[in-house]
């Protein structure tokens, strides 16, 4: 056999080189998304303008003025505080609760699988509609939850209408809607963990709390990071639930970024200020997700190294 005959040459002349292939594969996705980049840049430009739709004649670049105004605007600092607080509380609670539920459902069984799917139901209801229903359920006259609360002695619980409980109520709805998201990701993570370390630990009689904190939790960390990242991105941008429940009230209790920006845009038609708020929100999420992604990649790499 002639030695050169061993090489089966490609049939056609067209060939995507190995170097080009990944670009070819990711390009369509990128192109589809890049279209969105143009409006994004336009919006950033708006944020540097004095731009009120109701005063078109006064539209002009005012450069950083929209941003500079925030520094002296107590409403902005309140927005920043409330947004971070809201995101912090919801993500923390949902993470703890989601992890707890995932641990409860960890064992593979038909019942557990079924429960885990049914627990996804709240996620499937559009948050705006879910909030509408919660508003009814917490209505002092017809609301089943208010009624149940009154049965256990909470006669004057004001849910979303009192500044002291509004955050709590909205957080409750957020937890109801989004804990399943974290739960399902962590459940999948838990079920995919290798069994050997746990069997070994059980044989050695290692205390369960130790196993949880020293084996389960570290191994679950990459899952926790991804779930937290996606949840955090959504939570800091929460709009539907808060707007439907309280429109940002009572007072300025819940004027998170998106609610403020929404009101600025759709009602005040102050495009410049709205865009500046959104750009700041975007910067915050960019910063947060960067931290998460870095850690995620580091963890992946470490996992790969061990493998």
């Amino acid at each position, binding site marked *: 056999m002639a030695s050169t005959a061993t090489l089966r040459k490609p049939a056609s002349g067209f060939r995507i080189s190995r170097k080009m292939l990944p670009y070819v594969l990711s390009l369509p996705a990128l192109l589809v998304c890049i279209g969105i980049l143009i409006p994004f840049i336009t919006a950033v430009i708006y944020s540097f303008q004095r731009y009120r739709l109701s005063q078109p004649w006064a539209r002009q670049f005012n450069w950083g003025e929209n941003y500079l105004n925030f520094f002296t605007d107590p409403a902005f600092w309140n927005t920043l505080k409330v947004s971070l607080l809201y995101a912090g509380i919801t993500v923390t609670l949902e993470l703890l609760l989601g992890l707890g539920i995932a641990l409860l459902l960890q064992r593979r069984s038909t019942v557990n699988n079924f429960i885990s799917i049914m627990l996804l139901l709240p996620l499937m209801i559009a948050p705006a509609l879910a909030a509408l229903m919660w508003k009814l359920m917490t*209505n002092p*006259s017809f609301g089943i939850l208010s009624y149940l609360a009154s049965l256990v002695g909470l006669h004057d619980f004001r849910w*979303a209408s009192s500044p002291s409980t509004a955050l709590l109520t909205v957080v409750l709805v957020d937890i109801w809607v989004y804990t399943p998201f974290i739960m399902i990701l962590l459940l999948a993570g838990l079920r995919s963990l290798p069994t050997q370390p746990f069997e070994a630990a059980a044989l050695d009689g290692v205390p369960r709390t130790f196993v949880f904190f020293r084996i389960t939790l570290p191994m679950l960390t990459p899952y926790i990071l991804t779930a937290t990242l996606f949840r955090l991105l959504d939570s800091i941008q929460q709009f539907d639930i808060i707007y439907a429940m*309280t429109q940002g009230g009572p007072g300025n209790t819940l004027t998170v970024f998106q609610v403020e920006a929404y009101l600025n845009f759709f009602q005040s*038609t102050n495009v410049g200020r709205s865009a500046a708020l959104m750009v700041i929100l975007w910067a915050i999420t960019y910063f947060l997700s960067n931290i998460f992604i870095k850690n995620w990649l580091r963890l992946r790499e470490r996992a790969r190294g061990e493998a």
Partner: protein
Amino acid sequence: MHEKEKDLISAFLRGEVDRRGMLKGLGAMGITAGSAGTLLNMMSTRALAADFDWKKHSGKSLKLLLNKHPYADAMIANLQNFKDLTGIEVTYDVFPEDVYFDKVTAALSSGSTEYDAFMTGAYMTWTYGPAGWITDLKEWINDPEKTNPNYAWDDFLPGVKNSCAWNGQPGGALGSDDAKQWCIPWGFEQNNITYNKAMFDKAGVAVPKNIDEMITAAAKLQKDVGGIYGIGVRGSRSWATIHPGFLSAYSNFNEKDLNLTDGKLSAAMGTAGSKAFHAKWVQMIQESGPKDWSTYTWYQVGTDLGAGASAMIFDADILGYFMNGGDNKMAGQLSYAAFTANPDATASTPNIWIWSLAMSNFSKDKDATWYFMQWASGPEHAIFGATKMDFVDPVRQSVWKDEAFRTKLDKYPGYVDMFDASAAGASIKFTPQPLFFDVTTEWAATLQKMVAKEVPVDEGLDQLVESIDRQLKEAGLG
């Protein structure tokens, strides 16, 4: 159709027979009021056609943007008549009220040519007008070539009509000579009292005559009826909390939202009178308002009244009207009364909400669009809507004089009297200016803080004044 019937209707249209007489006559001929209405409309259409070239834009097509609302429903029910009359094809998009204005803002701000005319509130035109999204309609109204002779612009209630006209100057008086007619009023809402008669009787409470009586009446109702609260008013963090009962009562005390001096606007809520009124209002909500007042919108206020959870509301009369029908538990048990908050005032001066029709500046055929608008706001459709559909409150004086309409309102005790008592003083009490939503939203938020006792009334108002003055300055208005 028999000739006799036709003659009768024609006689009515010529003004020889009044409406009641005509309906009576038709009834005698075995025609029910329902089909009489349809007949009437068909005949009207013919009558209209007689003296105006309705077919001028035949073959064109228009698209409307509508809010899911009884007014829109009434128009849609009658739309075939317009198509027959003009040969213009009309399509429409209906959006839920919850998201309607977002849709309008999105469509207009992007310069969309999709919609030719749309429903709007007068307050919104304070943004849309200066933004250049809508057309001054005076040009069309005053052009006999374009407007049919029966249109009767004078027939519109002056307070309502003027509330839709603004010269575009921040603080400029509504309905001034140089004002632009940004929209045509369609139907409107006066803010008065709707109350549950049975509850009032049970508690032995009379309809309150001023704000102090309202406070005591609400408290007594809440205490004596049991399981209910005294008075329903809106409380959400929105302009919608300010404009109904609250502003109606506030302006009855001659208090204003903003002052205009030398072309500069400044907040006017810091006066002693304003503070006193706010204190009373806040007290009323704290004592006898809904427990979760700060989440209350139109819907909750209405739902509670309809379901028998509240004894009265100080809100839009048509909200009370709706709650008196349908599957509401209290259907048929509600009564209406005009309300004069200020003991020293002689008459009620309700602030009003006006559902109007505006013409998009991006419309591709404004003349044809105006054909639709003059038909939809014309006397014939007004009668149809008011008598056959739930087109309350109509904006034409002739409709209020219409016997059939007044008869229909018999089922709503006190409604006509309420209207008559307050129509003269009914107008928009806000100062027209582009920061309307900023001012009212913050005002509502301040009220919420006061009701929640987070801030005393005086202090809250001082902060509000300071903040609004700052925003007005920032926008170059103050």
